[in-house]
């Protein structure tokens, strides 16, 4: 039994951005999704849907279409008329080029991945050739009246279907002429929208075109004859997104009402060989526009204005494995946006465009468990630091002492010194930073605040020594493996001797700061680390992986500890599987260093390493929580594992001194209240 006083913080006004478009690469099993703020995320489906890479957004970038080429090239196009290829190692745009056709509404790549087609505002379809290191404009197809809103290549690569206002055209790629013009019915008179915008087209290999439009219809056309085969009215509002499964037996369509409708190619009667597109399932997991939808082999993935990514398993396609078949929602980022200075009780919140520094409140009374204490000192917003430039902040940190703040965008790093004197607070930007510091994937101060570690390009880590007068570049660590994958986690030991880094190739390197040399590399585990920390006393490294595994590695002995092995034996990760969100933070109780605290979005727990791990499973699967049990039945004080699910959803949990906890919650209802009103107001009770 452990008692804590909790700062329950709800003033982190974090607001995720809506999802605009998605592209799923089935071979890599990764989903690329673009948000409204121009940021791009790559989610690894085979690694427990972990947010593998995040490319920060940019104010001037607006993405309308996203496209994979191969499994390592990612292109986006947007309303600023630019085409961007991203560098997936440096996590920033590789190059941009203007298509000169006005805003780009849509992009499509042919099946051979040799050409791109872009649909532009001026009614042109522009063909670009894909070269190994760039793309190059080839030619325009015949320009038509009206913007091109959707494009789809035929598998043969000879035909392109293009959706526009009220019309679908089929272009012959070779000649560039329009070979078929299909008029799409306008909505019935009196409906909200007279023009029929063809938001989506999909060209199937059997020369069938599927379209989704602003009148709420999903229509199946014969591309050769230009005739309508079937109309499905799925919504009173727009059909905003459409996706065809890889083997072309299923179509999913997302609507403005928040529904996702599935159509399947089935024969209406058993034994009949003739097949038809039949509306089968309707999912309703969104409250707002479903702007992007795609289908994997086992699930329907959808995202939209309500900012959450929903992965809904198709139960007929998954093997029975309960953890696979449940509905998953990715709402919060799989990294922490909050840093905490434990001693002065400061919290640094990271927004895309600013940082906020808060001082926690306090109370002068004590209370019994379950009580709320009167707040005698209110929390205080000390600082609001707006970033410079268009690029969004990608990482930030505050030192333990609370005197240093650092943040980075893809183009620059900024370091500030903070002086707090009673009520006066002053901030000074450290102007002269060493030249090596251009951008950072991760920032970390040493425990004594004398050093700043900057994870930079090519998996290098720069060590900067800090003092009042100047900042000096001390050393740059490079991984021995020569990997160039971006480092996303850094951890430094309390005694200042060790620094560990984890990169996106699952490599974890340990560096000796005293000797300034590479100490060792941990055995590579096939799941990305999601959180990492070094024990303040034993200097053992604790790592949590995206697949819920937890390891403890002795840096001195260069091997996994006994405790780590025991934890495996008890099957901790199996117990954890019912939580879908990865552990995003590991820390230790300063007043009882044997207590490890770790948290994900829905719970935080404390594992006492000094206590035996027996009966862990029994506790997990027990219907009774220890609180319900009587004093005698309780699994005594020798129980190593203590969990709390009272606070949800969690963005950050940290243990301060004197048994204080700080818990940063972000209630979903607060997020929903900031969203625009959905197109169709929800009826009571429906």
């Amino acid at each position, binding site marked *: 039994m452990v008692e804590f*006083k909790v700062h329950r913080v709800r003033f982190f006004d974090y607001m995720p951005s809506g999802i605009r478009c998605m592209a799923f690469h089935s071979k890599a099993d990764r989903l690329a999704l673009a948000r409204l703020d121009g940021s791009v995320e790559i989610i690894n489906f085979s690694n427990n849907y972990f947010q593998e890479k995040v490319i920060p957004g940019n104010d001037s970038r607006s993405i309308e279409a996203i496209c994979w080429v191969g499994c390592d090239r990612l292109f986006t196009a947007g309303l600023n008329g630019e085409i961007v290829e991203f560098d997936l190692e440096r996590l920033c745009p590789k190059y941009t080029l203007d298509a000169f056709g006005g805003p780009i509404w849509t992009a499509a790549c042919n099946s051979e991945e040799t050409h791109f087609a872009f649909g532009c505002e001026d009614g042109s379809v522009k063909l670009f050739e894909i070269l190994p290191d760039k793309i190059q404009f080839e030619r325009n197809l015949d320009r038509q009246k009206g913007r091109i809103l959707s494009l789809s290549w035929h598998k043969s690569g000879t035909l392109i279907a293009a959706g526009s206002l009220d019309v679908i055209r089929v272009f012959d790629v070779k000649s560039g002429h329009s070979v078929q013009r299909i008029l799409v019915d306008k909505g019935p008179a009196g409906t909200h929208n007279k023009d029929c915008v063809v938001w989506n087209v999909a060209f199937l290999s059997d020369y069938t075109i599927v379209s989704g439009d602003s009148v709420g219809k999903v229509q199946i056309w014969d591309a050769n004859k230009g005739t309508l085969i079937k109309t499905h009215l799925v919504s009173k509002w727009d059909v905003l997104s459409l996706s065809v499964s890889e083997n072309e037996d299923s179509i999913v369509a997302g609507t403005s009402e928040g529904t996702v409708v599935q159509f399947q190619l089935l024969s209406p009667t058993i034994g009949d060989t003739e097949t038809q597109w039949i509306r089968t399932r309707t999912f309703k997991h969104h409250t707002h526009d479903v702007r992007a939808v795609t289908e994997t082999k086992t699930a329907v993935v959808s995202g939209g204005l309500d900012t959450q990514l929903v992965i809904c398993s198709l139960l007929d396609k998954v093997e029975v494995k309960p953890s696979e078949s449940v509905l998953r929602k990715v709402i919060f980022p799989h990294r922490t946006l909050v840093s905490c200075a434990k001693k002065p009780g400061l919290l640094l919140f990271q927004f895309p465009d600013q940082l906020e520094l808060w001082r926690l409140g306090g109370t002068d009374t004590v209370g019994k468990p379950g009580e709320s204490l009167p707040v005698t000192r209110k929390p205080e917003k000390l600082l609001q630091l707006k970033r410079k430039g268009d690029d969004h902040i990608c990482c930030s940190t505050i030192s333990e002492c609370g005197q240093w703040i650092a943040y980075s965008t893809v183009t620059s790093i900024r370091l500030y010194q903070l002086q707090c004197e009673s009520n006066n607070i002053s901030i000074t930007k450290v102007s002269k930073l060493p030249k090596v510091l251009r951008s950072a994937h991760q920032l970390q101060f040493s425990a004594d605040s004398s050093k700043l570690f900057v994870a930079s390009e090519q998996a290098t880590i720069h060590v900067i020594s800090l003092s009042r007068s100047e900042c000096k570049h001390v050393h740059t660590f490079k991984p021995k493996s020569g990997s160039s994958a971006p480092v996303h986690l850094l951890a430094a030991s309390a005694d200042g001797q060790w620094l560990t880094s984890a990169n996106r190739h699952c490599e974890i390197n340990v560096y000796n700061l005293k000797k300034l040399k590479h100490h060792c590399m941990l055995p590579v585990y096939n799941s990305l680390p999601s959180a990492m920390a070094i024990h303040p006393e034993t200097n053992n490294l604790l790592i949590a992986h995206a697949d819920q595994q937890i390891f403890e590695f002795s840096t001195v002995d260069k091997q996994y500890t006994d405790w780590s092995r025991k934890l495996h034996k008890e099957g901790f990760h199996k117990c954890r599987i019912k939580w879908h969100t990865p552990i995003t933070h590991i820390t230790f109780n300063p007043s009882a260093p044997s207590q490890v605290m770790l948290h994900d979005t829905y719970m935080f727990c404390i594992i006492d390493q000094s206590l035996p791990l027996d009966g862990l499973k029994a506790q997990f699967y027990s219907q009774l929580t220890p609180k319900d049990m009587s004093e005698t039945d309780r699994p005594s004080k020798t129980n190593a594992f203590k969990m709390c699910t009272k606070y949800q959803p969690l963005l950050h949990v940290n243990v301060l001194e004197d048994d204080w906890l700080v818990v940063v919650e972000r209630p979903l209802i607060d997020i929903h209240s900031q969203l625009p009103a959905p197109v169709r107001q929800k009826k009571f009770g429906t």
Partner: protein
Amino acid sequence: MAALYEGFTLCGLAAGKSRENSGLLGIEPGRDPDHVIVTGAGRTVTVYKVSDQKPLGSWAAKQGQAVTCPAVLHGQTGEYVAVQDSKVLRIWRDEDINFEKVFKATLSAAVSRIHALPSLEPLVLFQRGAVRQLDALLAAPQQAVEEVLSEDEVIRWSSCFLEAEQPLLLFSTEKSGECFLYLQKLKPNVLHKYSIDSEGKGACPISFTATLENKCITLMCLYSSGCVYKLLVSLHPSVEGEQHLPKSLLLKLPVSEGVLSRAAITSLEEGHIAIVGSPHSASTGDRDFLCIWNTNFQTLQASKELAGGAYGQLWCNAGKLYVTHGKVLTVLPYRCEMSSLAAALGKLKQTSTQEVTLSPSELNWNSLLHEETALQPRTGGAGMRTRNSATLSPTINQVLEDLKGVSSEEVEEVLEPFLSCSPVSPQFQLGLSHITVELLKRCQADPGFYPQTVLARLAQTGRLSHSSCPGFLMLALEKRDYFLAQLCLQQFPDVPEAVTCACLKAFLSVADADLVPVNVDLEGVSLVDGPGHSLEGVQNGFSPVLLEEDGCDVQLTAPKLDQSSSWIDMSLTRPVGLKKSALLNEILRSSYSESFLLPHLKDLSSRQVILFLRYLQYLYVRSSGDVYTQLPGLRAPTVTQIMDWVSLLLDAHFTVLIMAPEAKGLLTQLHRFVRSQVRLYSELGKIQGTLQELGKINKEQEIGLYSIEVIELF
């Protein structure tokens, strides 16, 4: 309903007797229903003509001798039989003047009581339990008499019955606190013994009364604790030997403190019992009351305070109660009606109205004046009494007498004084039903006699119920007096389902033209008959037509086009005339129980059913189109009532309606309407569910942006 009428004194009691002993041995029926034989404790036997309050004959034993058991009349010979000094039988006739000289026979054992039966030899019960018929005893007076009872066993009470021409004697005994019951049959001579379990805590039986009904003796026993128990004694017990008799609690008298000692019980007819010597309510500790209780409903029906204190002696003979109190023997005529729930509750209803009229805010001169007249007889002399109480019981008999032979027109004149007197007294209530029953009898016997206005006035008093005057409503229907029928339906709280159905049938089959001359109370029908505006307008967002369009039901494509218009059309026309609908509404408002009503409903013809259904549908459309669940009008049926009747009708005639082509349209419309309503209610249900959830949410404590909490981790 039962009532006690004004009593009168039959005779004084012998003076100088103690408080405990009234000095009266017993009262036995005489030759005539009006005659009683009063046996004094000392030496006298007197025969009274009760109505004249005068003795017809009196005999007395000489000094030193005593009459030890109540004298009885030998039904066959007309002789009186009494026992003198426990062992000497005395038999005499009216002509005998000197008691000393009458027949005398000395017996070998002491006699407890002699019981006379109208057509048989009297039975002599000896103190030791043996029973002999009088003639057998007279043949050999000195014959040996066996001892049935054990030592110390004393007979407390005895009674005799006639079953299948065979006499039966039932007597109870007591032996050191234990009670036994003996049932003695003669020819063949069989004796059954029963034990009665005592109530415990010193409560002992103090008075018994028994009645024979359906070959079973019902024994009621009053315990000193105030409980009245019922014991059923079978005439043909299957088991030999001593049996245990179970008892069931019938009534618990409100005895506030202590125990009853001088109380007596006697059973009257129709589930009523009279009890003397117990208070009628717990609040009044005074025990000098004579009360009539209804054992079926455990209600107090009538009570009378007895001046001078009661002795706990009570006899009942020919519709009169004889009770000793103070220094007199008082005769109280009583009347018990068949106990129906309505009648049993009548007393309650009456007291409540009395309270209203007597409330100080509303001074009613009539009631004040009446109070005076009611008080007068008590204060006035004996001679004044009969005339002053003219408003009460004697007048009822008088009125009944007067009613005989008068014509329809004159009836009202005769009844006027009675009807105009205040309807507060229970006598009025009883008299009312009595008069009504008499009138009904006459109407049935004489087809020309039908005092419509009087009957209507009687019904309008609101004090009649169907059970108190069965046949009233049916008579009204027979005479096609729909006004009266409506009145009855309005006023009677307990119209049986069969009669309701008969009314319904009659109302449905009457032509609207026939109703034109009839005066019908139209309060139940709203005269503003324009439902269109309330229906078409959307009230609270609800419109049945709209909902109908919402559901894309393929089955109903055919009437879809004109559906909305036909719907309104339907609702616009009232399928029956105004008067008829008023009558039908009265039916809808009457109370019923489904299972009893259903079989009678099946008697309706299909045409009647369809007409009624259409009318119900009309009502329902009208009422549900409105936000208020009740139609305008004071006596309009509620939606629930309408809906229940629709369901009942459909239940009763489903197969018929299915087959009838003319019902098809109606049924589909009903179906459609019900469906739209179901949809509405399901929507409402959802809203309710949502709002409930809201309530739950509100309960959660408000957490601000920042709070400090203490938690405990296990």
